[in-house]
C-alpha cells in the first residue's frame, strides 16, 4: 500500500475544502467540521470554492502549499477533483473524500486516497422510491420530479436511483421532471407551473427537502392537500421536512446527514493508529416518516 502514513499527534493541521456555502446542508456540514476541530485537536484550514471545481482544486493546492497533515475533501464533481487528490497524495497528505466521491476508474480508495466517507446518492433515491411503492395507496401514481441543480452529481444520482426503482412498478408514471435548483423558491415556482399543466399529479418527488417544502407551498396555494391527495417524498432530513412529516404534509424524507465531523475525526484517528480503513465508510442514512419524525426533530438542522 503506497498511501501516505499519518503520525499520531495531539494536534493536526487539517484541511477542509468546502465546495460551496449556498445551502443549509453545506453550511451545516462546514459547521460540523468546525465544531469537531475544537474537540478533535485540529487546526482547521477552511476554504470555500464557491461552487467551482477548478477553484476547489486551487484551494487544495494552496492547502498543500501550507503543509496540512490531512485533507478532507467533498469533491464538487467526480472527475475534476482528481488532480487535487493526486497532488495531495504526491505531497504525502492522506486524503479522505467526504459525501461525494471521485471517478473510480482513475483514482481509487486505498491507493490514491484513504477512503470515501459518505452515503450513496443513488441509493437515497432508490429508498425514497421504495417507500413510495410500499406506501402509495392509489392505483395510479402521477409523479412530478423536482431535480437538483442541472448537471450536478447528486441530482443525476438521486434521479437515477428513484427513476429506476419506480420504473419497475407499472402504477407509476413520471409526467414531468424539472430542475428546481435545490432551492425552495425555485422548487415552489416550478411546482406551481407544473401543477397548472398537470392537474392530475398526486406524487411529488423532490431531490432535497427545500424543494419539497416549496412544492408543498405551491400545492397548498393551488388548493391541494399535500399528505392527503398528494404524496410528497424527498431527501435530506431537515428540520422543516420533519415538521412537515409531523404535520402530515409530507410522506418521507431519506436522511442525508451533513454531520460528518465526528465520523471524520474518528476515521482519521483510526488511520493514524494504523487500523485498516474500509475504502467506503458508509454513512447509515436513516429514513424519517411519521413513525419517527417527532423523536428526531430535535437533532435535525
Amino acid at each position, binding site marked *: 500500500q503506497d498511501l501516505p502514513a499519518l503520525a499520531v499527534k495531539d494536534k493536526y*493541521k487539517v484541511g477542509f475544502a*468546502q465546495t460551496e*456555502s449556498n445551502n443549509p446542508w453545506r453550511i451545516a456540514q*462546514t459547521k460540523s467540521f*468546525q465544531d469537531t476541530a475544537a474537540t478533535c485537536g485540529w*487546526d*482547521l*484550514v*477552511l*476554504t*470555500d470554492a*464557491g*461552487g*467551482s*471545481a*477548478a*477553484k476547489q*482544486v*486551487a*484551494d487544495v*493546492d*494552496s*492547502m*498543500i*502549499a*501550507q*503543509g*496540512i497533515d490531512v485533507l478532507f475533501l467533498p469533491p464538487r*464533481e*467526480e*472527475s*475534476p*477533483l*482528481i*488532480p487535487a487528490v493526486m497532488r495531495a497524495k504526491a505531497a504525502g497528505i492522506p486524503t479522505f473524500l467526504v459525501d461525494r466521491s471521485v*471517478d473510480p*476508474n*482513475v483514482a481509487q480508495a486505498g491507493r490514491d486516497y484513504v477512503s470515501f466517507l459518505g452515503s450513496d446518492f443513488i441509493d437515497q433515491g432508490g429508498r425514497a422510491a421504495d417507500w413510495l411503492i410500499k406506501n402509495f395507496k392509489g392505483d395510479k401514481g402521477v409523479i412530478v420530479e423536482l431535480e437538483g*441543480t*442541472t*448537471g*450536478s*452529481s447528486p*441530482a*443525476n444520482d438521486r434521479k437515477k436511483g428513484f427513476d429506476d426503482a419506480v420504473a419497475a412498478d407499472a402504477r407509476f408514471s413520471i409526467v414531468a421532471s424539472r430542475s428546481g435548483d435545490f432551492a425552495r423558491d425555485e422548487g415552489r415556482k416550478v411546482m406551481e407551473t407544473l401543477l397548472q399543466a398537470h392537474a392530475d399529479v398526486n406524487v411529488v418527488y423532490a431531490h432535497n427537502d427545500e424543494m419539497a417544502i416549496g412544492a408543498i407551498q405551491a400545492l397548498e396555494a393551488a388548493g391541494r392537500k399535500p399528505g392527503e391527495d398528494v404524496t410528497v417524498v424527498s431527501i435530506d432530513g431537515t428540520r422543516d421536512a420533519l415538521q412537515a412529516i409531523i404535520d402530515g404534509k409530507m410522506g418521507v424524507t431519506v436522511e442525508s446527514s451533513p454531520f460528518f465531523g465526528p465520523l471524520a475525526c474518528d476515521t482519521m484517528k483510526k488511520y493514524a493508529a494504523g487500523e485498516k480503513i474500509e475504502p467506503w465508510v458508509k454513512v447509515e442514512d436513516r429514513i424519517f416518516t411519521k413513525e419517527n419524525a417527532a423523536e428526531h426533530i430535535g437533532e435535525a438542522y
Partner: protein
Amino acid sequence: MKKLLGDGHVAVWVALVLLIVFGTLRYDNFASAYNLSSFLGYNSMFVLISVGMCLVIMTGGIDLSVGTVAALASVVAAQLSPHGLIVALPAGLAAGLAAGALNAGMISGLRLPPFMATLATMLAAKGVALRLSDNRTVPVDWASDFTKLGMNKVGAVLPWTMLIALVVVVIAWVIVERTSLGRTVLAIGGNAEAAHLMGLKTRRAEIFVYVFSGACAGLAGVFLASGYGAGQPLEGAGWELAAIAAVVVGGTLLTGGMGSVPATVAGALLFGVVFNLLNFENGRGTISLSAHWQSVIRGLFLLVVILLQVRLARPAAKK
C-alpha cells in the same frame, strides 16, 4: 516603461506588488514554487478571458458569455481528448470561435445590443454544454497526451497554460498598440459613429473582438479540461464578472475608447492573489473566516482598489 505598465494604470500594479510582498512576509510557503505554479496555472484561464474581455470593452461592448463558452469548450475538448491534444485543443478552440462568431453576428450583423446578444449566447452555450455532456462532467482520457497541457510546466514553476496565456496577451497587446485593427477597436469605443464616418473598418474590428474573446474563452475551456481532467458544463459561473472586474481594475473604461492590455493582466492576477491570500490567512488559525466573511472582504478589497484607482487616475486624466 509607461507603455509597459499601461498609461496611468499604476494603481493596479502597486496593489499587486504590495499584496505579493505582504503575502510573502506574512505566510510561510506563500512564495514557494508550489504555490506559485498552482497560482499561475489556475489563473491562466482568468488572464485569458480577461484579455478577451478587455478588447471587447475597449470597443464599448461587453461579453457575458465567456464563462459558459469556456465550459462548453471544456466539454468539447474533454470528449475529444482520446484523440490527443492535437485534436482536442483545436476542437475546444473552435467551439470558442464559433460562439464568438455567433456573438459577432448578432452584434455586428443584426445590431443587437452586446449585453443582450452575449447574454443569449451565455444561456445557449450552457444549454449546449449540458446537452453534449448529457448533464454530467465529462472525464478526459488520462492515457492521452491531452492532460499534459494543463499539468506540465516549463521549468519548475511556469505552467504551459500560463505561458500560452502570456503569448496571447502579447499578441493582443501588439494588435492593440501596433495595428490598424487595434486602433480601430479603441476608436469604436471612443465614438462609434465618428469611427464609421472617418471611414474606419469598424465592422471588421467589432467582429474581431467578439471572435477573439470567444477564442480566448475557448482556449480557457481547453485549459480547464486539461488541467482539471474533465469537461465541466457547470463551470464558468461568474467568470464574466471576474473578467470585467479585472479589466476595470486594470483601468479600462467600460465606456470604451481607452484601456490597457497589460494592466488588465495585472487586474486578473490581483483577484487571484486575493483568493490565495484568503486561503493562507485561514490557515493561520488566528481568525477563521467563514465563507460569508470572505465575500465581504473581497468586496471591501475591491472597494479599496477602486478608490485608490480613482485617486491615482484623477489627476492623470485631468492634465
